[in-house]
């Protein structure tokens, strides 16, 4: 596996030299593998959003380097413009960025900025729409007539239509009903599976992070606090709790059981794994 994005000693300071000076990112070293699904968790204000805005060059680091495919992204202005299409970023509450008269034109905004021809734009719009499971007939509607969940999906489609190598989503399921939440997560997973691209998912939701990622990053007070596989991360319940985060519900249950003397292994984070562990303990008899 080769890294697609690398951060070296990344620092970011907001409003330096004023009373509002704030060190948002402190010496971050990080490598993201090509084709991986990375979950990023952390408290509000821990620097997650600031960090991901560096990955497509929206923010310039105060110091440190960002490498995309081994190449410094800040070598030229054209490079940054190109990078925006290679590293697609879906912001928090992306539905507030919709502006066009029709859903079609809004999704086409990104691909058009890439300078693609009409047929290619059309193909991408329809492909993206399929990924977010919206019917083609809404293409002619105004995005402002749609429901909240649909708007969110149109906005995500607008970024997917650029077919980025790395897709970053900042809290894509915040403020949605459970059904829309599951749908969007499923869309992201399908997209990752079909395109085999890299996905970075920023979320508050431990269960989602646990279930979907190969690699987890835990941010705390502007630093990268923990990094590893979900299993490694969620076997460190105490460390997570120190930063005010929790582990997935099923991991909490396992921890409780262990405290009561049931020899549950550490770092279980899916219901299936917990079930298998419990069944194994009963002497391997299967009830499945």
């Amino acid at each position, binding site marked *: 596996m080769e890294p697609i994005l690398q951060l070296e000693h990344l620092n970011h300071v907001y*409003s330096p*030299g*004023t*009373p509002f000076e704030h060190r948002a990112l402190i010496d971050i070293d990080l490598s993201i593998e090509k084709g991986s699904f990375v979950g990023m968790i952390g408290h509000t204000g821990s620097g997650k959003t600031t960090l991901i*805005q560096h990955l*497509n060059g*929206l923010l310039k680091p105060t110091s440190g380097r960002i490498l995309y495919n081994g190449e410094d992204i800040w070598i030229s202005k054209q490079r940054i*413009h190109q990078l*925006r*299409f290679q590293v*697609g*970023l879906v*912001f928090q509450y*992306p539905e*507030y*960025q*919709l*502006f066009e008269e029709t859903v079609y034109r809004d999704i086409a*905004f*990104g691909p058009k*900025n*890439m300078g693609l021809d009409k047929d290619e734009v059309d193909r991408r719009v329809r492909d993206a729409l399929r990924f977010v499971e919206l019917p083609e007939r809404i293409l002619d509607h105004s995005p*402002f007539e749609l429901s909240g969940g649909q708007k969110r999906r149109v906005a995500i489609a*607008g*970024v997917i239509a*650029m077919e980025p190598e790395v897709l970053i989503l900042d809290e894509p399921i915040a403020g949605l009903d459970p059904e829309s939440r599951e749908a969007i997560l499923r869309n992201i997973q399908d997209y990752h599976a079909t395109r085999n691209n890299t996905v970075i998912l920023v979320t508050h939701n431990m269960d989602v992070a646990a279930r979907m990622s190969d690699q987890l990053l835990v941010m705390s007070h502007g630093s990268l606090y923990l990094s590893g596989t979900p299993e490694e991360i969620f076997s460190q319940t105490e460390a997570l709790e120190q930063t005010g985060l929790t582990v997935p519900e099923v991991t909490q249950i396992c921890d409780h059981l262990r405290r009561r003397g049931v020899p549950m292994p550490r770092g279980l984070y899916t219901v299936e794994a917990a079930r298998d562990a419990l069944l194994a303990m009963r002497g391997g008899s299967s009830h499945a």
Partner: protein
Amino acid sequence: MLSNITLGQYFPGESLIHRLDPRTKLLLFVLYIVALFLGKGLVSYAIMAIFLIVIIVMSKVPPSSLLRGLKPLWIVIIITGVLNLLFSQGQTVLFTWRRISVTLEGCYNAGFMIVRIILLVLCAFMLTYTTSPILLTDGLERLLRPFQKIGLPVHELAMMMSIALRFIPTLVEETDKIISAQKARGADFESGNILRRAKALIPILVPLFISAFRRADELAIAMECRCYHGGEGRTRLHQLKYARKDYVAYVIGIVLCVAVGILGRRFGL
């Protein structure tokens, strides 16, 4: 990108200037403007400048940020200076070019005009840098209250002003977010001719307006829910109260204004 907007910017602090009553600061600001226009010569402007410098030092606001605030005004200042330089009447002609002549009086006028504008703007900055927008509107409302008798909707005006001020940072932040989001989709705001650039603003303005209206709606509902019904019978959490330092400030301000007035109008200094 938009973080250099200084409009209504407030520099939190605990200095004596910060703790003055907002009414005191507002009225002293008015007095200062009056004095600026009463002054005539080097002496009165020197006094005014020293007075302002003392206030700036006392307020502990970094001078660099004051200068940064002046930046967008340089063009206005320079144009005013040049116009005064070229079109002032005077006896002592320094040199003539075609039909335009530069006089010594013109030089003085231009210089004083520039100093006047800079002092005025800096004094306005001192007011907004050391007074939080909420206190400022409170002070304004209290000062304008006598005009209620002649039908001026003072409370409503103050409420509108504080809401507007309150939402400036929110909307700036929102604009920043929208710009970032559109940039992430490859929007380009920096190249092309004027028409292209104007068109490039649509993806920012449409979401911004929609969100402004949405916020206005939500705020109106929230105010209704808390039974807001205008200023009548409304009490305040923070009562404005003059302290001794305010009276001292008033005395200093009036003395300064009168002194500069006499110096300027009587002696032409």
